[in-house]
């Protein structure tokens, strides 16, 4: 073995250029794999890590404020109970620190017992005072332990710790959470009355008994208003749905990386072995065994692959760590830490194993032939093929096409890999653009109005008469609790008349709202409750009034994670006559939103501008977009490498043809034209296949994955296709430039 190792090392040293090029390819593939692995492993396991870290309860119960003693009594009678803790949750609390402020803060007054959140810095709250804030808030506002924050009109309170609770997404996606101890809260507010709570956390001895506990909890909760029960798995469904598209995309990326690696490395190894047939023939002729030749080839591949794969995996992990941690942070989930080591070692092993096999297999096959044949077959020549039309194809560009198409199997493999990689880039670009649209364009969510005015329905005619207003519709929205599934929150929305004039999320199934007994539910709600067209939506309103409606249609909506239902105005107001109302205002084409806003404010309305999924979601969208574009960029580098390698192999195999051309007076420009032809032979069909693949396969497939949230049009548009083609042109130009530079640097005589 040491002899084979010495020989392999000598080969690597003798062919430094080739070894470096091969190593670069392995670095890129390993980078792609490591990026995909780092992000998808982090997301796939993030919730479990977060739940374990935070000791997340099995059930979260929220209700209207009750004396703690009464709630304690009800909870104590639950079966299989391991522990519970009670909290008072105060919402819409103004919080501010320095120049930052938010009006929708949530103050959690925590009593004794288990917490359900993890302290990630500093220490937990205590009776001595001080607050713990959620990590998302600390990150967004640049706060740390020791800084101070104001809650309500309190004096600045010291921040004693940072917490992470995976039962919700982090600020700014959700309201900022501030935790304070019961003793400190009561001391600060000088409360002397009995403690009231509105949130209970329940831990079970045996989580498999959850259903029985929920049934009992429902019975025990008789008389409680505003009840909502959320299970750990319910939380997980929501969080995992959000990460699902990214994980699916990264899974696909991993497969593409492997396919690309296999194609590139096998092609390079085959070409190298072809080039070395003569040397192999000599080795065989002087008595080297077939095993020795194979071992040398495998060791040579390993000597290049081991450092290259280590570098690639390191780069990929570092590259993905930032966006991945940011995404996990937004989901209130910890990073994978040392748990990522095993998957990354797996990536390393794969990216080492593939080149070793790709090097050993063709060597094993080649070394099986008689030495004489090997010695004769050493010269690489163009394969006889179809006859070209006489006089029809003398041009260098066309000759380049012919040179590239001579090796048909390799051409097809390169073309397939390049097409898949390119279509994936196109998909990423389309997805990033779509995310941008979702973040900024309300119409992408089916929202047709630009402004919301806090005015009663009776003010609609007056608003309609304002200049610049095209249409006005009264809108009601209330939250309700699902009557069957033990507390899933549903948001009921009603418009006067046809709601599709104002909000028209894409209809997935059934029909739009018609009649007083129908509802049009969001896909998120339909999935959570198992609703289909024709089934019954039963919800309990705040005062306990139950509303039963037939599901007439299912729509794709991102609002409230799709947990919405459009219901008839009359049905909603019958159940909740004091439902909060607003006016949805559509601004006339060409009119200024600012002017209409000023007019509305003049008549006393508080006006909000419609946004896309954004608001708080913009941060998540930005993080996702960053991640997608990072992946697309790495993928683009892989395309560049693949094309460069294909051209370098063509130039290497046809070095005598190129040398003849140069001997005849062809300069670098002519060789560039020749290799541009070879590049076009790969790029043009790859681009066509990539666009078709993205528009007809990948785009629709990912759209289907995402249809629980939104109707995404992921078929690339003309601008995105044009950008892709421009990118491919740049890649082609770079690859040609680099290969021609290498080719023309070699002496002509060496190729003859």
């Amino acid at each position, binding site marked *: 073995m040491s002899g084979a190792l010495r020989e392999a090392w000598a080969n690597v040293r003798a062919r430094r250029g080739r070894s470096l090029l091969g190593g670069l390819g392995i670095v890129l593939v390993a980078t792609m794999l490591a990026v995909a692995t780092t992000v998808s492993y982090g997301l796939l396991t993030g919730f479990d890590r977060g739940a374990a870290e935070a000791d997340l309860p099995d059930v979260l119960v929220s209700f209207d404020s009750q004396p703690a003693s009464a709630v304690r009594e009800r909870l104590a009678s639950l079966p299989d109970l391991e522990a519970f803790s009670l909290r008072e949750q105060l919402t819409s609390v103004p919080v501010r620190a320095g120049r930052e402020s938010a009006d929708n803060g949530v103050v959690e007054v925590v009593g004794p017992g288990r917490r359900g959140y993890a302290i990630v810095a500093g220490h937990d709250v205590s009776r001595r005072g001080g607050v713990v804030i959620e990590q998302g808030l600390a990150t967004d506002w640049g706060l740390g332990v020791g800084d101070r924050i104001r809650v309500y009109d309190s004096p600045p309170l010291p921040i004693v710790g940072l917490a992470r609770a995976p039962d919700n997404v982090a600020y700014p996606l959700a309201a900022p959470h501030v935790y304070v101890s019961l003793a400190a809260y009561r001391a600060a507010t000088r409360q002397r009355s009995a403690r009231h709570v509105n949130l209970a956390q329940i831990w079970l001895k045996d989580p498999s008994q959850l259903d029985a506990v929920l049934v009992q909890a429902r019975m025990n909760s008789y008389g409680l208003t505003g009840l909502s029960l959320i299970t750990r798995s319910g939380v997980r469904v929501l969080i995992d749905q959000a990460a699902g598209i990214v994980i699916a995309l990264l899974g696909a990326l991993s497969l593409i990386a492997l396919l690309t690696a296999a194609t590139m490395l096998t092609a390079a190894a085959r070409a190298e072995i072809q080039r070395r047939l003569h040397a192999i023939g000599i080795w065989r002729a002087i008595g080297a065994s077939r095993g020795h030749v194979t071992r040398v080839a495998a060791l040579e591949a390993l000597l290049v692959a081991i450092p290259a794969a280590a570098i690639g995996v390191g780069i990929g992990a570092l590259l993905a760590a930032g966006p991945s941690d940011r995404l996990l942070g937004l989901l209130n989930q910890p990073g994978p830490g040392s748990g990522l080591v095993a998957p990354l070692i797996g990536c390393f092993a794969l990216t080492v194993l593939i080149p070793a096999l790709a090097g050993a297999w063709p060597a094993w096959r080649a070394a099986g032939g008689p030495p004489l044949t090997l010695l004769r077959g050493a010269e690489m*020549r163009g*394969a*006889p093929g179809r*006859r*070209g039309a006489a006089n029809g194809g003398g041009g*260098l560009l066309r000759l380049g096409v012919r040179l590239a198409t001579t090796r048909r199997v390799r051409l097809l493999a390169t073309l397939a890999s390049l097409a898949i990689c390119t279509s994936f880039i196109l998909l990423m670009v389309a997805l990033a653009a779509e995310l941008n649209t979702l973040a900024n364009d309300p119409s992408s969510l089916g929202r047709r109005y630009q402004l919301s005015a806090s005015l009663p329905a009776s003010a609609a005619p007056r608003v309609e008469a304002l200049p610049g207003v095209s249409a006005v519709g009264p809108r009601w929205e209330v939250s309700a609790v699902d009557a069957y599934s033990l507390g899933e929150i549903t948001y009921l929305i009603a418009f006067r008349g046809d709601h599709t004039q104002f909000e028209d999320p894409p209809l997935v199934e059934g029909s739009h709202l018609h009649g007083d007994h129908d509802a049009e539910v969001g896909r998120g709600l339909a999935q959570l409750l198992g609703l289909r067209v024709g089934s019954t939506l039963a919800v309990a309103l705040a005062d306990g009034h139950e509303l039963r409606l037939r599901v007439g249609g299912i729509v794709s909506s991102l609002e409230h994670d799709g947990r919405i239902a459009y219901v008839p105005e009359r049905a909603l107001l019958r159940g909740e006559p004091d439902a909060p109302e607003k006016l949805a205002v559509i601004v006339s084409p060409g009119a200024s939103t600012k002017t209409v806003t000023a007019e509305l404010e003049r008549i006393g309305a508080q006006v909000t501008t419609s946004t896309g999924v954004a608001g708080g979601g913009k941060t998540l969208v930005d993080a996702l977009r960053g991640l997608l574009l990072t992946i697309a960029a790495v993928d683009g580098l892989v395309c560049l490498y693949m094309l460069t390698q294909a051209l370098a192999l063509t130039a290497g195999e046809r070095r005598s043809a190129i040398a003849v051309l140069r001997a*005849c*007076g062809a300069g670098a420009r002519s060789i560039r034209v020749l290799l541009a032809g070879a590049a076009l032979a790969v790029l043009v069909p790859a681009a066509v296949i990539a666009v078709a693949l993205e528009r007809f396969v990948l785009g629709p497939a990912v759209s289907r994955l995402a249809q629980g949230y939104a109707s995404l049009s992921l078929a690339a548009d003309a601008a995105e296709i044009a950008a892709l083609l421009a990118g491919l042109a740049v890649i082609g130009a770079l690859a040609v430039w680099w290969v021609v530079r290498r080719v023309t640097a070699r002496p002509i*005589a060496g190729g003859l």
Partner: protein
Amino acid sequence: MSPDRYVLRARGLAKQVGSGRARRQVLDGVDLDVVAGEMVAVLGRSGSGKSTLLNLLGGLDRPDSGRIAVAGEEITGAGERALDRVRLRRIGFVFQSFQLIEELTGEENVLLAARLPGAPSGGRRRAAALIDRLGVAGVAAHRPHELSGGEQQRFAIARALVNDPALVLADEATGNLDDASAAMVIATLGELADEGRAVVLVTHEAGSAAAADRVLHLVDGRLQVAAEGVRPDLGP
């Protein structure tokens, strides 16, 4: 002799090849002048540096020292573009292994050089005339693997001549041919010289060299006069 008659002038060419302990001097002060209409054969053993000399004369490689001028144009020290232009317009190469491009027909191989940027106009006409003259018009649409060795070499000669060069360099042009084909190729090279071109033929076969106006021996990196033919007035 008037200097403008010299198509090729080489002075003091030296070249080392190999590296480390294997490095050796293959050319050590070679002087060679060839005039228009002259055919010079360079004989030498294997590894004597014949091909290295031809590569230097054709601008395919650069000498360690010495000077070369082709058709009055100095090529030592010339930039790549200038060298490309000289090879395109002034020099035609004929190789031992023909070096035809497999993907192209015989005719396309000939036209390839004529279609390079900067090639003199009229290439298509000249190509047709050459193919006709060399007797391969009937197989012009065939690809190299469908041609005999002699036919391939004739297409290679046509390619070397398609841009009407002043200097033709032939490297073991008959090495891969049977006697009849070899004789035909040598006769063709002689005709090229008769038309006013300068022809340098390197070979290790004395028979092939016999038709040359001058025969030189490459020994120990230097050219020695072996024989002079019908043009005794021309020195090495």
